[in-house]
């Protein structure tokens, strides 16, 4: 995982769990108290999203555009994507840099947590009564000690707006 240079530096800790060769790494994030994780292959970097330019007339999920080292990145709010209300006051907006069909996206989250190493075999399917809005974005659930971890489907998270029609 690359660290961002211009925005402030975030240290993503190494997983504390035992490492096995077939375990995979999942950077975790938190939104409204819920822990979620993304497959590490899809995560480019983590950065502080400062100065987001709002885009009038854009779909709701898009928070705006931001400048990441000279590249224009489309900021997508994970909260809005999950149908959650916006956070009232944010001092530092954290974003996870993703690449989707050759374009750069920043997924805005409340907090960025550590990188966990998890056994892909331990992934459980979504509970049947999970909110369909959430279920559509989730690959499945991991049971951690005292917590449940949703594994996000990055393509699904970024499939909204005009593209959904095309797909």
């Amino acid at each position: 995982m690359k660290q961002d240079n211009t925005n402030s530096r975030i240290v993503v800790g190494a997983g504390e769990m035992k490492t096995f060769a077939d375990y995979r790494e999942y950077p975790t994030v938190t939104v409204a108290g819920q822990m979620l994780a993304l497959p590490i292959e899809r995560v480019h970097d983590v950065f502080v999203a400062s100065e987001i330019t709002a885009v009038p007339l854009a779909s709701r999920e898009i928070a705006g555009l931001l400048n990441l080292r000279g590249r224009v990145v489309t900021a997508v709010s994970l909260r809005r994507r999950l149908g959650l209300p916006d956070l009232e006051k944010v001092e530092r907006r954290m974003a996870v840099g993703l690449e989707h069909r050759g374009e750069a996206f920043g997924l805005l989250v409340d907090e960025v947590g550590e990188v966990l190493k998890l056994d892909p075999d331990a992934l459980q399917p979504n509970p049947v009564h999970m909110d369909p809005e959430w279920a559509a974005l989730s690959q499945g659930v991991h049971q951690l000690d005292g917590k449940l971890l949703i594994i996000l489907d990055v393509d699904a998270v970024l499939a909204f707006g005009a593209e959904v029609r095309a797909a």
Partner: protein
Amino acid sequence: MDDLLREFLTETGEHLDTVDVELVRFEQDPNNQTILANIFRLVHTIKGTCGFLGLPRLESLAHAAETLMGKFRDGMPVTTEAVTLILATLDRIKEILGELERLGTEPDGEDRDLIDRLEHMATEDAPVAQPAAAPHTAGTLSYQVLERELRPGEVSLDELERAFRETPGPGAPPAKPAPKVPALAPQPVTSETKPPEGAEAGESEAAVNKVQSIRVNVDTLEHLMTMVSELVLTRNQLLEISRRVDDQAYKVPLQRLSHVTAELQEGVMKTRMQPIGNAWQKLPRVVRDLSAELSKRIDLVMQGADTELDRQVLDVIKDPLTHMVRNSADHGIEAPLERKVAGKPERGTIRLNAYHEGGTITIEIADDGRGLNYAAIRKKAVERSVATEQEVERMSDAQIAKFIFHPGFSTAKAVTSVSGRGVGMDVVKTNIELIGGTVEIRSEQGRGTTFTIKIPLTLAIVAALIVSSKDQRFAIPQVAVLELVRVTPGSEHTIERINGTPVLRLRERLLPIVPLSKILGLGGEETADEGFVVVTQVGRQRFGILVDGVFHTEEIVVKPMSSKLRHIQLFSGNTILGDGAVVLIVDPNGLARMVGSGAGEGQQGDEAIESEDLIENDLTTLLVFRGGSESLKAVPLSLVTRLEEIDASTIEWLGGRPLVQYRGRLMPLVSADEALEIRREGIQALVVFSDGDLAMGLAVDEIVDIVDDTLAIELVADRSDLIGSAVIKGRATEIVNVAHYLPLVHEAWMRSTADTASVARSVLLVDGSAFFRDMLTPVLKASGYKVHAAASAAEALQLLAAGLHVDIVITDLDLPDRSGFDFVEVMRALPEAGDLPVIALAVKHDPRQIAQARKLHVTELVAKFDRRGLLSALAELNTPLEVAA
């Protein structure tokens, strides 16, 4: 695919393009040995390389073509069929190359058909070369993959060698010597792969040029461009910091960095620039093929081929240009016989012209053909349900012309292989608009059609005006900006509202205003009338964008919109400013579309206002007002000079007639309706009409709205103050006859103006006053006449001489350049128009005029403001004409 093959494909593609162009030149100039030698060499190189790479199909084709060209060199007459055949062979080669690129191997297939024809043609006329070839069988065989008999017209190696020595230097020499060959023929073949040595090399300018250029992958350049853009941004950030930190030690190197960066940026930009000639390369061939196919004779003239523009832009316009040239050749240029009949040279000309103009490049595609067939387009528009019959009848030719950009529109009678498939012009327009360009049509019946395309020089960097709206910054491309106007309530420039729709008076015209904050949904209070109006022009549509603040102009690096945002047609991209902030680039085309479609709050800038010479109007912009009765009244906005609200106490009454001091003169007022009394106190709304120095104020109750609608007038017989009634935006509205009020006010007006109307199915209206032309045109159209108008006798004569067909001429007797009688006299001498019935409009009847009118066979003399008299005179004329037709 290995590198060798890839390089071969690129190179051969380029060679073939050159051969295309050269062959067309050669056909026109068959004695030019230099061209022939050049073609010969290129084809031979292709053949040689194919043999080396083991591509038998390509090789045999190239060989057969080469053989035939060898005959040309030996003096065989160059015929069109032969050139067509060679061109067809080149096309086949290109096809195979395409497959090769896709699959990595040569596709299976047979080319016997072409090869037979080529061989047949080569043997039939020129047996001369055969003996020369025979002794050198061994040498030629070396090129073949398969052992076989010598083909007819085979060229010996010695001859080839001679050809190469005589030829001015090769272009980019393929870096692949043919190793099999030297065994059989020691020195020759290597020479095809290396530049000629010594004196020969010196002769060739092309060779020198090639040495200095290298092939660079486009991705490498794109990457370089991105890096430079980022360097520029970083530099800007550093400069920003150094302004705050007072450390001299940094300043000097920073300045140096700044300069170097600027130069680097310029240099990289240059690498992206290419002459537009690259996009035109295929055109001579296209035109030549079309001429042959359509049996027309067409010259293609290209000017400004070295005008440079961005590679990206070039890619986008290449196909549209080709399509437009095809269209001109197919639809525009007439067959030779038809041209001869029309008194034009048999050879038609298509002229391409490119030049820089500010930050844009203008490309004109002009033909001297028959011009657009408006009647056919009208008919088609109705057939395709693009517009109703009433609508098209009332549309101006300029508006009709725009239909050809409508999807699925083609007026070609038959679907030829050339055009008529109804795909194209809409795509052309879309492509051009995609890169922020515009396309306009000018067409004159019998004289030809000109398309004018204006596109930005580069997509990558544009000058943009940075503005703010509700604390957010936006960039507006400078190309579209005409001027900036500061507006504040109570000042000279004030935003006014008509039924809530903001407008600005700017130099006697009403400019529709689009508040940026509103159209972007940024919210805020509606009534904000303070700020700046960015006067913007898109095509012929003009409107003002209201913003809160204007900062500066900045060269911005345009970055494409994310795919998630591309559907928002108001933005064309985004950019990063010097301070690192991302701003959105407003797309004036998108704004104009919103303004035009009424989705925005602005009103469409009326085209009739912009161009007074436009006579037939059809989506008419109307000013709707209330006066006297409950019913709505309307006048065409093009007739209105200004809207005023005056303090009623300033109205003066002279002999019972109301006057008001207006701009230093007295202006008479007329009530819009007998039932409406002009106010004595409070505020009186006025609609001001003027013509030259004269002005008149029409007192109304209130101004309701400005709307665009088609004007389908139903005439009313009983009232002279109305032309008729029409349904406007779903409401019955009376259309006011401004002509009715004028005599009430001004004797003078009658003298200073004249009107001309055209009658029967089509009428030519000659009148010096734009005002009266505008006024009479709808009246005549409402009565079913098609109206052409001319502002002077000279213009009218020119139209008639140019073959404008009309059934009746209506002329004012008092024209600006000469008297109406003079005009009629000259017209009578014209072969095309000598017999036309004429209706003359006179201010008053006098016996002398009547006598003169009779002498000149003027059918009818009608009083200037006698609308009904004019119509009945026309109706009388019409009856016998219809019988004749």
